[in-house]
């Protein structure tokens, strides 16, 4: 396959940045998108240029590091996959592919396609945990009965890998899907109940502080989410937040 890549290049956070075009040839349809990016970088390095910086780690869809906006969609055109799970067979010979970083003021560009997603970490730090006494007498989690449906929903929420595709996709750069998944995974389990009200309030407050946009329920986040996080999590968070605010003493 011969492709034309239009890639966002930005030297650093202060640089204005621009799109640059790189032709790549002999791309195998069996390559993953990141392998194709490696190939492009190899060409750039051989010609004495600065390779394109992009985030990646596990390359098997579980770490949430890869973060490319490909042809106008987070993680490219396929559903339920991260960029590393996207293969070149999803494109045609002769295609022009536009590759951009996640765009959000809460995700500032570090360099080229790599963005700083530490705003997600700060949202987690604000309340995305349960306080457990680790004196050695901690109750075994499996000893606490949890209804099957609730356990499944909590597990589904917990599959969020924090990649930020929801924010990147949302026309408002809202982080509601991410935050609601992190709120829900505890709100649905007995261990999460003691801090349920304060957790949702703190995490929403931190989310707003980070400068994410507002949710207008377009549902784009759930469509583009590589882990299929459901919109019901957002409704649950809205519900919890409303009741926590209303009942606050």
């Amino acid at each position: 396959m011969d492709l034309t890549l239009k890639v966002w290049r930005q030297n650093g956070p202060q640089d204005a940045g621009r799109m640059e075009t790189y032709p790549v040839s002999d791309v195998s349809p069996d390559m993953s998108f990141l392998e194709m990016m490696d190939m492009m970088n190899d060409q750039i390095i051989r010609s004495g240029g600065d390779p394109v910086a992009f985030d990646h780690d596990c390359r098997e869809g579980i770490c949430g590091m890869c973060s490319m906006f490909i042809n106008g969609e987070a993680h490219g055109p396929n559903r339920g996959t991260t960029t590393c799970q996207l293969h070149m067979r999803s494109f045609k010979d002769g295609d022009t592919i536009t590759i951009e970083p996640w765009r959000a003021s809460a995700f500032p560009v570090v360099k080229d396609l790599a963005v700083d997603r530490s705003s997600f970490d700060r949202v987690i730090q604000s309340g995305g945990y349960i306080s457990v006494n680790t004196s050695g007498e901690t109750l075994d989690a499996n000893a606490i009965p949890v209804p099957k449906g609730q356990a499944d929903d909590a597990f589904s929420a917990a599959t969020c890998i924090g990649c930020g595709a929801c924010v990147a996709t949302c026309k408002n750069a809202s982080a509601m899907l991410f935050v609601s998944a992190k709120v829900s995974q505890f709100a649905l389990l007995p261990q999460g109940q003691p801090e349920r009200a304060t957790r949702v309030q703190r995490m929403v407050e931190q989310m707003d502080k980070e400068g994410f946009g507002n949710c207008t329920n377009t549902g784009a986040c759930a469509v583009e989410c590589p882990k299929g996080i459901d919109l019901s999590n957002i409704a649950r968070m809205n519900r919890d937040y409303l009741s926590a605010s209303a009942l606050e003493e």
Partner: protein
Amino acid sequence: MALTGLFLCLFLVGHLAGNLQLIFITGEEGQQAFNEYAQFMTTFPLVKILSYLTYASVLFHVVDGIVLTMQNRKARPVGYVKENGAANAKWASRNMGILGTIILVFLVSHMQSFWYTMHFGDIPMHNGLKDLHTVVLQFFSPENSLGLVAVVGYVLAQMAVAFHLSHGVQSGFQSLGVRHAKYTPIIELSGMGFALLVPTLFAIIPIFLYITQL
């Protein structure tokens, strides 16, 4: 947005019920009935309270919409070179601001035509009542040089309302956290039905008035 939006949906139902008198009761009897209704709607204290609540809801819905849109713009200062919004969200959900602006422009013109005339304008009298019925009929009349423009404008505005509601109704429930695997499909279906039915019935009225006066 959700609370005021859903409240305004209720207002639409009430407004529609009143307007439908223009179709279902015609002639002298219809004129009397509609004018009595208009008199009641502008003077009865409980309706007055409801109308102030409606003005406040419209105002809040508009101002909040603008504030949220500004925050959302700030949340993404640099946009994408290529963005395929159609791949993951419906057109109406992505253009609520534009649709809302069209509705607001219509609302200003609509209130100037009828609400202002009824409250402060130079309005003819009929049997001791302000004759809003004649004002409406003349507004959507072929004898009025702008009658056809008024009908077309009204119908287009109702289309904007339809698209706005097609996203707005279910979105309002979602924002309030009202979601359940069993009931959400019903809410979504009813929302779409509401979005289709209410503006269609509104739009039929000026078309009917225009045609019957040909």
